[in-house]
């Protein structure tokens, strides 16, 4: 398929970066996380590559293995995360710019924690002592 590189114009990328700036303001002032669904926008591959390049890479990179691989890294702008989710066949099912202290999917779920605890040897005894 032809890649329409000419569509990677800076105007579109600048508009998205302004959106990111707005979300960062919201995070700082109200503590509210936000995100931009890149697959929901009519962006060419070249445009997405330009956007990723202009955001750069920061200090954190995480690989998640849950129903397929996910790659999450902090961009060069703290609090701005580049998140790519794939299914088990390696197809991209979501591509997001997340603006958050930490992307929610990285946080352990309380019910999962409880199930994990149940698998640890001696967890019952600990529960008894705690009670």
């Amino acid at each position, binding site marked *: *398929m*032809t890649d*329409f590189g*000419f*569509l990677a114009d800076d*105007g*579109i990328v600048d*508009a*998205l970066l302004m*959106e990111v700036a707005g*979300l960062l303001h*919201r995070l700082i002032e109200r503590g*509210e*996380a*936000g*995100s*931009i*669904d890149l*697959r*929901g*926008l*009519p962006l*060419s591959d070249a445009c997405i590559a330009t956007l990723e390049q202009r955001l750069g890479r920061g200090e954190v990179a995480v690989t*998640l293995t*849950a*129903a*397929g691989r*996910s790659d999450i890294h902090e961009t060069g702008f703290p609090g701005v995360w580049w998140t790519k*989710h794939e*299914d*088990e*066949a390696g*197809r991209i*099912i*979501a591509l*997001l710019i*997340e*603006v958050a202290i930490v992307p*929610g*999917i990285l946080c352990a*779920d309380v*019910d*999962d924690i409880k*199930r994990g605890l149940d698998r640890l040897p001696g967890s019952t005894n600990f529960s008894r002592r705690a009670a």
Partner: protein
Amino acid sequence: MDETLGEMLARRGFGRRSLLKFAIAMTSSLALPPMIAPVMAANLAKAKRRSVIWLSFQECTGCLETLLRSSAPTIDALIFDFISLDYQESLMAAAGADAERTLHEAVAANKGEYLLAIDGSIPVKDGGVYSLTGGRSNVSMLSDIAADAKAILAIGTCAAYGGIPKAWPNPTGAVGVEDLIEGKPIVNIPGCPPVPEVLSGVLVHFISFGRLPDLDDRKRPLAYFGTTIHDQCYRRPFYDQGKFAKSFDDEGARQGWCLFELGCKGPVTHNACASLKWNGGTSFPIESGHGCIGCSEPDFWDAGGFYTSLAGGSSAGWRNTGIALGVGVAGGIAAALSGRSKAT
């Protein structure tokens, strides 16, 4: 069965992150704000199995085939596991009187709560004698089973609008579900066949939020049918530049130029083919070099030849008729941004 979806996933070794990831993908697919995903995941985790009764009327089984052969990720497949498909004539083992008994038992056990899925049009001419199941006309079955349904999914262009059976001269008097049923929530998922991911999106939305997604004026899910194929087409820049293939083997075709003059109906066809694509996101007809035939629109079979341009000749003439295609790429980006980027 009282097990929730969250419990079932945990039993099968999936953590909550898998469900959240699935919800993130589905909110993207449904054009919901990304920050809705945690809510959707929480609701899905608490959801219980829902009965689906599927009736096939005047159809070719293409809709069922495409849905069965969709290449869905594992969690998606589990969502379908979570639908109790209590009656589907082509898939169920039972036949004859046993099958009919199964249908009536499913209706009685899930009265007012089951989803009714329909594929195929309903012939009403001559008392509906042109399509019978167990000696009963389709229109009679639809009337009875729809009465106690929570909502109705009209799957495929035939069920939605009458489709090919309704094409001139429509010898059986074929109509779509919405022509016969009033007072029930109906969602049309047209396409010949429909995009399978649209059905899974509608089901997930219903399970998560207890209601159908927002619909357009033809009762189609807005998230998937809100724009035309043309709006989302990767060849759209060539249309804007006035570069058109003139035949299927000319230099323009080889360069991937716009297929408008070869009869592409993308500008007037609402569907998600250009964004979701087919065969696990591999491609869609225009990407394979053939124009859109407009199969998800009412009366598409009678809407002129598949190889006759909407202009009846050249694109320039058509564009001069004043039909608005939208505001172009820049406007589309701006509109999409406002809808897609949301904070909690």
